[in-house]
């Protein structure tokens, strides 16, 4: 990833200069470097208690649309999903915050059960 980062940084200027082209191929060395710039996309979550915790922790790994895309789930399903994020994916969420996040998800993206 360090190399990737440096490459990205090195190409940043040339990409910026290309203005209306989000794909760049280095001209000096034919087709050797290919770069893209990912668009910044806004997606927001419903207002509600605990939204700040969701924004802080869940966004580390994925955009909020991962949440808003889901069908309504009962609280135990949201709880299982949040615990998977902590146990399997290493989300740095303590017990109190995990309860806040589960409550937020169940209230705003839940089935009411």
């Amino acid at each position, binding site marked *: 990833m360090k190399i990737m980062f440096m490459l990205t940084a090195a190409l940043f200027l040339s990409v910026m200069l290309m203005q209306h082209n989000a794909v760049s191929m280095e001209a000096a060395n034919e087709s050797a470097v290919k770069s893209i710039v990912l*668009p910044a996309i806004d997606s927001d979550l419903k207002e509600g208690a605990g939204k700040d915790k969701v924004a802080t922790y869940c966004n580390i*790994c994925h955009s909020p649309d991962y949440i808003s895309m889901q069908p309504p*789930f009962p609280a135990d399903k949201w709880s299982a999903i949040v615990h998977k994020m902590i146990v399997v994916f290493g989300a740095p969420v303590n017990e109190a915050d995990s309860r806040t996040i589960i409550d937020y998800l169940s209230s705003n993206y839940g089935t009411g059960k």
Partner: protein
Amino acid sequence: MKDINFSRRDFLRTAGAVGLAAAFGGIPADIFAEGRRLYKFPEKTDLILLTSRPPQLETPLHYFKELITPNEALFVRWHLANIPTSVDLNKWRLMIGGNTDKALELSMDDLKKFEKVSFTAVIQCSGNGRSFFEPRAAGGQWQNGAMGNVTWSGARLKDILTQAGIKAGSVDVVFDGLDSGPLPKVPDFVKSLPLDKAVEDDIIIAYEMNGEPLTMLNGFPARLVVPGWYATYWVKALREITVVSKTYEEFWMNPAYRIPDTPCACVAPGSKPGKSVPITRMNTRSLIIEPAAAASLKVGRTVDIMGLAFSGGYSIKDVTVSVDGGNTWRESRFGKDMGKYSWIQWYYTWKPEKKGKYTLMARATNSIGESQPFESLWNPSGYMWNKIESIDVNVA
């Protein structure tokens, strides 16, 4: 990328800032397809946005009127947020090693020295159609657009492994790409194939799609192509191939991407399977593309019902069509045959003689008799959707 797309994007950004989720009402219809938000990513056309980071983009159905899916319209699905956005081919090397006689470091030029193989194959996400399952399954809420039919070109994996020399006692071949997770504990997206599968003739390291270099979002500079099997194995932006002497069982092989170990790969809706196995070969499915659902048709006017059908590596034997909700079935005609991994386009000419609502259905059967069920075969992850499609149209 044309200017219009930037203005469209800027507009969306503004719309998002004022609460896009709350009110879609004021946004022009042309940035939506099938009621869902469209977005343009680099090298791609406007695709249905499921998620932005990592990106999951779905192909709007109308592209499936074409036999070959254009590169810019092919769906996108990444698992981990750190996806490759820049690759220098002077530095990129595909590393092959593990339980082999020697280690290889192949540049793109080296890769292109192997015999070039080309074929057309359907690429389909395991979760294509997930949003149709009841009860609903967590995950990417795809409709039918997490698939495409693409002509892939590249080097045979077998030829590369042979050059490295597979040692006795090898069991699996493991594939890792350039993507990674944002936290140390996030399991790297790594997939494996059993060795006997990996050395089949038709498994290639593809560096071209439809005669062009891969788009970055579809796995530039090279990806694995496992025709007939779900796209979870088609590891993008390949970095390393490792031959191992025991079954590879890390997260993305187990517990992820598993299906019930039952003949139908299904369990009673809502229940938990006992034993599970890795998902592998695609089942048989078909789709009606034209007319569109809820289309208005005219009495006495001929309609060409058109669709596609494919299965996991066996050619489609027939596609039967019903215009009366499944009471009677007639065989359709096929378009050009692009081989057993491609989808086939089918056509059925119909002249509705009476006014009313009609339910159109299509059912494909492959050369070994695998077909489609009338009721969906449920599994907890929402994989392998292949229920017989049914759409309603109005004749007036």
